[in-house]
């Protein structure tokens, strides 16, 4: 027999289980009269590890879901799980790895204009949101990902984006201009600069347009 959870853990478990959408620890706490539910959530996440269902956190919201390794048993290619176009998936990746990012910045990376429908598809899916405007001439709209994006792709936060640390370290999330400038100055010292990987100093997240 398994050891039984205490009353608070049971209450958090029931609340999380009954919730219709992913829910923050604060909302669970408010529902249960203001107690701290974080330890209970972590205890539940531990308890369910290895079971058929899991307790996960996605962008600060918690939910139960079927365990990922059972996907082969449960996978449903339902009509609503449609495939995104290549343009849409690339655009989504660029927004996720560079956010917040303007349309012009997306186009600079992809090398082609973004068709009107591409961003609409991502906005409609609820994975991308308008995150304000960049304070540069023209005040372009900038885009960022949403909590639903994190939940859909099973990411606790943007730090979980596949390979993001490596991309950052290699300077591949920096604008070309910055990388070039770095390389030129580095190149003055070493002749083989162009074949070297980008230095660590490129790591800074420069979001300028």
């Amino acid at each position, binding site marked *: 027999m398994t050891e039984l959870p205490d009353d608070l853990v049971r209450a958090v478990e029931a609340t999380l289980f009954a919730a219709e959408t992913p829910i923050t620890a604060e909302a669970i706490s408010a529902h249960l009269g203001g107690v701290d539910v974080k330890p209970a959530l972590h205890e539940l996440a531990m308890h369910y590890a290895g079971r058929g269902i899991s307790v996960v956190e996605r962008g600060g919201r918690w*939910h139960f879901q079927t365990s990922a390794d059972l996907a082969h048993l449960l996978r449903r290619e339902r009509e609503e799980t449609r*495939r995104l*176009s290549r*343009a849409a998936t690339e655009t989504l990746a660029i927004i996720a790895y560079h956010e917040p990012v303007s349309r012009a910045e997306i186009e600079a990376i992809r090398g082609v204009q973004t068709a009107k429908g591409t961003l609409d*598809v991502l906005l409609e899916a609820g994975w991308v949101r308008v995150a304000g405007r960049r304070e540069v001439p023209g005040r372009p709209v900038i885009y960022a990902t949403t909590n639903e994006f994190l939940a859909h792709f099973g990411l606790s936060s943007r730090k979980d984006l596949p*390979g*993001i640390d490596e991309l950052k370290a290699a300077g591949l999330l920096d604008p070309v201009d910055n990388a070039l400038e770095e390389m030129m100055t580095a190149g003055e010292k070493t002749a083989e600069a162009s*074949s070297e990987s980008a230095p660590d100093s490129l790591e800074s997240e420069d979001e300028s347009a």
Partner: protein
Amino acid sequence: MSPELTKDLITTDPAATEEWEGPASAPSENEALYLELDGWEGPLDLLLDLARRQKVDLRRISILSLVDQYLTYIERAEALRLELAADYLVMAAWLAYLKSSLMLPREEQEEPSAEELAMRLQLRLQRLAAMRDAAARLMGRDRLGRDVFLRGAPEGLRVDRKNRWQCEWFDLVRAYGQVKARTAPVVHMVRDRMVMTLDSALSRVSAMLGVTLDWMELREFLPPHADPRLRKSALASSFVAALELARMGKAELAQDEVFGPLRLRRAAA
């Protein structure tokens, strides 16, 4: 291969998910060429694929041979009389220029140098490649609604708000008092006030003017020790009486300054 018209739209072909590295669909029907040429999404896309065919790290590709391959592609397309989108031709012209610059001695190059332009192109290709790989890894994750599932029939959480109304005894009683006060029939009564009529003021002022020839202040005509309300009335009546007497030529009026004391005396006969 039939041209796909749904470039940026979602398609329902599940198998296509796995064909990430495969050709993209054409931007539109009349650009069906790109399907012939493997379906590129713009010149940078074509360049990236050519660069990957060099089968070396993107940081070590040969820009010169990349340029040659691109130009060859474009020439082949032109030989087939396929209509090329303008940006492919612009890229071809730019790459031809880059190639000639790269072959010039360094000192004869303009700013920015050909090396810098080549480096810039290489960096762009690296960045596009990085995002393309990232997108593929992202799409390959266990996705909610496809690979993992939320609870099928959650009961849902509901909070019913209930009001506990608060009211004090004093507020209740005062409210009633206010209602009664507000709606009580209102009787307006004009109070019986002591007044000096114009007639009595006229006779009083003219009588007093007969006593002396000197200037007198209007105040001096008022009854002394009168009730303040009567005094006000007497002042007004006496003023009008003074004006009336002046009109009749029986009195002279003088006022040295605005709001100054008003003086009057009997008119010289």
